[in-house]
């Protein structure tokens, strides 16, 4: 069976003074529609590179990315990206930031009222309607990332790419946003690829965890299916033996078999 998103034997070389440097080697991931996939690994292992290739910002040297039977090799709104540092335009209000995305994607197919409604709908989805007229500098880091997520969702992407979306946030804010993300996910059932280095986050949110070996020439070490029932509750899972099993699997992979040689 053809998968929804196929990251097909992707390798990438970066040119350096000493010849090409192979960052990723033969990365192969199949993702079904509506699946939530986390990619986890030590920093510098190339997990962001995988995401940038899917997003079309980098070109794979070998292999390619196939979305719904078509190869994708340039960026586009069907693969919206949530950036680690939110990447909101600081001169636009929250509303305008989302609106810019909506206008660029749907400007030709929807009228002004529809664009406005859709923008507000996405702000409501991340519970940020109250701050819609504020500038990004006037709201907290967690709120900025909510707007970043709203902007990405507003593009109605086929695949939502999240590059360590909560990495820059404190633990409590992160938990809030994870809960919000799960809530949104249960409504929309998007296909998501999330880059993370947080084991709990990966197990809590994912259907599938892709664990990557260390670079250079990083590749996939193991793929772990997370078969926990949804909706998942952070508190209930804390004592759940399955949850703890998955968690320890990931930890063992990261810190036993593929520990970093020098921190």
């Amino acid at each position: 069976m053809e998968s929804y998103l196929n990251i097909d034997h992707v390798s990438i070389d970066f040119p350096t003074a000493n010849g090409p440097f192979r960052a990723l080697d033969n990365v192969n991931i199949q993702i079904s529609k509506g699946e939530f996939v986390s990619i986890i690994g030590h920093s510098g292992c190339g997990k962001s590179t995988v995401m940038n290739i899917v997003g079309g910002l980098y070109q794979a040297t070998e292999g390619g990315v196939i979305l719904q039977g078509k190869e994708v090799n340039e960026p586009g709104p069907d693969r919206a990206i949530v950036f680690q540092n939110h990447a909101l335009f600081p001169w636009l209000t929250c509303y305008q930031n989302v609106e810019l995305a909506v206008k660029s994607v749907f400007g030709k197919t929807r009228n002004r009222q529809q664009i406005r409604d859709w923008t507000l709908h996405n702000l409501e989805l991340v519970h940020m309607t109250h701050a819609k007229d504020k500038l990004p500098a006037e709201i907290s880091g967690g709120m900025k990332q909510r707007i970043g997520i709203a902007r990405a969702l507003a593009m109605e992407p086929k695949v939502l790419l999240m590059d360590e979306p909560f990495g820059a946030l404190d633990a409590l804010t992160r938990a809030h946003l994870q809960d919000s993300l799960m809530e949104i996910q249960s409504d929309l059932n998007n296909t998501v690829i999330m880059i993370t280095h947080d084991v709990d986050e990966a197990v809590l949110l994912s259907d599938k965890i892709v664990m990557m070996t260390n670079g250079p020439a990083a590749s996939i070490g193991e793929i772990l299916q997370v078969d926990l029932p949804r909706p998942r509750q952070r508190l209930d899972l804390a004592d759940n033996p399955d949850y703890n099993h998955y968690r320890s699997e990931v930890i063992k992979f990261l810190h036993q078999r593929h520990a970093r040689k020098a921190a």
Partner: protein
Amino acid sequence: MNDKLIYFLEITGLNWFVPLAKIAGGEPVGFQFQQLVKMIGLPLVAMLAFLFFWHLAAAKVDTSLGQLPGPVQVWEQAKVLNEEHQAERQRETDFYQRQEQRNADKLAKNPEAEIKVRDFNGRPTFIDQIWTSLFTVFVGFLLASLIAIPIGIVSGLSQNLYNAINPLIQIFKPVSPLAWLPIVTMVVSAVYVSADPMFSKSFITSAITVMLCSLWPTLINTAVGVSSIDRDLLNVGKVLRLGYFTTVWKIVIPSSIPMIFTGLRISLGIGWMVLIAAEMLAQNPGLGKFVWDEFQNGSSNSLSRIMVAVLAIGLIGFALDRIMLTLQKFFSYDKTANIR
């Protein structure tokens, strides 16, 4: 209302008046008074000290045109220059009145009569020359900005283009306006040939010289500003599949506005300095020509009058910089940034 006034004063760089506005708004007088002393009192003391030492030093220097003028003589000449301006304006009004009267009389006698309307041909006064200079520098600066900002944006977006033109920029940037002037003069004389020229050649020569010298800071600052845009913001543009011009308009220009304005401010400052030299040599009827004429004139008042021009040049340069600063603050998205 008071908040708006304070915001206006802050954004225009007139911070000195903020304490006064706050006192008027009913804030505690003590602290605001201290601020007032700091902001107005200290510069005032420095100014008075400067005037005092100027007065002492000037009395000790004798030139072939008499004693170097002190603050008092300069102030006298400033008043004289203003009076001359008023007198000249009066003569102009009288001239046009007489002409109108004469023509009306002619027409009354003979409705077929051919009437002549002549322009007033008076000497440009000091104030007229200030306006000429301002107009010239504005035209030169505008031309420079129209060329420098687009090139800066394009070369900021393309590292290869920047590498290609960078040596040219570095070579032409340090060239003095005096070196450009003869070339510009000859080129303008050769190219700008018209029976009824809209602008005088001396004006065009000065404006182009200003342009050539004030191009570079804007160009370099724009290029640096554009090339240091957050990569993620450009990636957002790529994900949204924005076209080149939309990217420039929606992302590149807004995020590099502060740097562009920094460049524009430096450019305008340089343009104003260059203008005076250019006008001296090109004989464009502006402040530069005023200084030169007074120098050639060599009356006992000349040095004082030149000194008035020096102070006027300084004050206008300061005002221009303040205007640019205000525009910069107004257009920058980050209103809290400390720009000075």
